[in-house]
C-alpha cells in the first residue's frame, strides 16, 4: 500500500461518524456544555455493543475450523501474558510510578478496549478489507489474562482476596455478555442471526456513535489529570500501543491470520481497557490511583488508537504480511 492510499484510509477513519462523535464529545466538555448520556442509557448501549459483537462473532466462529483458530488463540494468550509484563517493565524505566500503580497500569494495558476493537472492525468493513470472523473470540480471550497478570505484578503472590477479583473479571458483565453472545451466535448460526440482524447489525454503527459521544465526554473530563501525569506517562501512553500493536500484528501474522485479522489482533494488543479493568483494579488494588490509569488509558491511548492508531496497525499488518511468505 502506498502512502497516499494509507492517508486516504486514515481520512476515512477520521471522518467516520463514530470518530467524529467522539471529537464532538471532547468539544462538549471543552466548552462546558451540560451534556451527559444518562447512566442507564450508557449501561444499555455498552451491553448492546458487547452482545452484538458476541453474537456476530459466534456466527462466524461456527464457520471456522478448530485447526484454523488454534494458533491465533495460542498467540493471543501468549500476548495477553507478555504485554502486561512489558508494560510493567517499561513504566519502571519511563516513569517514577510505584509498583502498585505500575501493576494497575499493566492490568489496563494487558486487557483490551471493546470500543477500539469495534471501531477497527467498522473501519475494515468501510474499507472493504476482509478479516477473520473469529476475532471476537480473541477479544474475549484477551480480556482476562492481562488483568490477572497486572494484579499479580502489583501485589505478588502474597495476600488473599484474589477470589473476589477473579470473580469480578471472569464473571463480570463484559466477559459474560461476550461469552454469552458467542454462545448464542454459535448455537443459532446464520439462519437465526437473520432474525436479529436488523437490531444487532443494521443499528450497530449508530449505537457505537452514541456510545463514542459519551466516551468523548468521559475522555474530555480525564484531560485535566494529564497535567499531573508527567512526560514519561505521556510517552508511554503513545509509544506502548505502537509496540504492543506491532507485537500483536507479528503474532497474528505468524499464527496464519490475514492482513485484516492480524491488524485486529494488533489493535487488541495496542488498546487499553477502561471498562473491565478499572472495576477489577479498584477492588483489588484500592491504593492504586485511578486518575493516573484512566488519564493514560482513556485520556491518551484510546483517542490515539481511535484516530491515528487504527490505520497505522493496518499499515503494519500490510508490511509484516509482505515479509512472511
Amino acid at each position, binding site marked *: 500500500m502506498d502512502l497516499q492510499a494509507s492517508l486516504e484510509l486514515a481520512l476515512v477513519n477520521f471522518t467516520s461518524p463514530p470518530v467524529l462523535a467522539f471529537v464532538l464529545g471532547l468539544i462538549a466538555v471543552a466548552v462546558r456544555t451540560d451534556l451527559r448520556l444518562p447512566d442507564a442509557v450508557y449501561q444499555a448501549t455498552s451491553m448492546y455493543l458487547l452482545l452484538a459483537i458476541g453474537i456476530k462473532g459466534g456466527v462466524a466462529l461456527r464457520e471456522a475450523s478448530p485447526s484454523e483458530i488454534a494458533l491465533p488463540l495460542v498467540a493471543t494468550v501468549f500476548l495477553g501474558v507478555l504485554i502486561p509484563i512489558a508494560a510493567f517493565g517499561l513504566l519502571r524505566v519511563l516513569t517514577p510510578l510505584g509498583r502498585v500503580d505500575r501493576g494497575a497500569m499493566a492490568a489496563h494495558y494487558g486487557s483490551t478496549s471493546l470500543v477500539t476493537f469495534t471501531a477497527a472492525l467498522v473501519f475494515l468493513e468501510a474499507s472493504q478489507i476482509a478479516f477473520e470472523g473469529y476475532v471476537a473470540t480473541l477479544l474475549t480471550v484477551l480480556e482476562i489474562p492481562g488483568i490477572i497478570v497486572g494484579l499479580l505484578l502489583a501485589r505478588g503472590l502474597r495476600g488473599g482476596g484474589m477470589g473476589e477479583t477473579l470473580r469480578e473479571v471472569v464473571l463480570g458483565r463484559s466477559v459474560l455478555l461476550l461469552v454469552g453472545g458467542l454462545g448464542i451466535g454459535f448455537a443459532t448460526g446464520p439462519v437465526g442471526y437473520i432474525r436479529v440482524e436488523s437490531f444487532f447489525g443494521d443499528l450497530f454503527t449508530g449505537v457505537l456513535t452514541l456510545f463514542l459521544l459519551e466516551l468523548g465526554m468521559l475522555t474530555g*473530563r480525564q484531560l485535566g489529570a494529564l497535567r499531573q501525569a508527567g512526560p514519561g506517562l505521556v510517552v508511554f501512553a503513545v509509544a506502548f500501543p505502537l509496540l504492543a500493536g506491532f507485537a500483536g500484528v507479528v503474532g497474528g501474522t505468524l499464527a496464519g491470520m490475514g492482513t485484516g485479522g492480524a491488524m485486529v489482533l494488533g489493535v487488541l494488543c495496542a488498546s487499553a481497557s477502561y471498562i473491565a479493568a478499572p*472495576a477489577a483494579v*479498584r477492588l483489588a488494588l*484500592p491504593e492504586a490511583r485511578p486518575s493516573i490509569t*484512566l488519564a493514560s488509558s*482513556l485520556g491518551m491511548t484510546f483517542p490515539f488508537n481511535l484516530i491515528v492508531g487504527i490505520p497505522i496497525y493496518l499499515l503494519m499488518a500490510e508490511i509484516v504480511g509482505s515479509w512472511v511468505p
Partner: protein
Amino acid sequence: MSEHGSVTCLTIVAESVLEERLLAVIDECGAKGWTVSMAQGHGPSHHGVSGIEGGNVRVETLVSDEVAASIWRALERDFFPHYAVSAWAYDVRVARVARYS
C-alpha cells in the same frame, strides 16, 4: 395502629463498584434490609472511576444502634481509607419498629 419507634437510618454513598461489597457487609452486620439507588455527585476524594462504571450508589438501611455501630466500624476499617465513600446516620421514626431490630 402499628407500633411506632425510633431506629437509625444509615446512608452510605460510594463508588458503584463497591455495591456488592457494601451490601455483604450490611447483611453480615445484621441489617434486615436495604435500599440501593443510583446517585450522581461530586466529593472531596474525586477518583474518576465512577464516571466509567456507572456513577455512585446510595445505600440506605434502617437498623438498631448496635447494628449501625457494627456497620460503621466495618466502614472505618475497610472502606474509608481507600475509597470515595460518604456516610451519615440519623434517628428516624418508623412504623412497625419490630421489623428493623
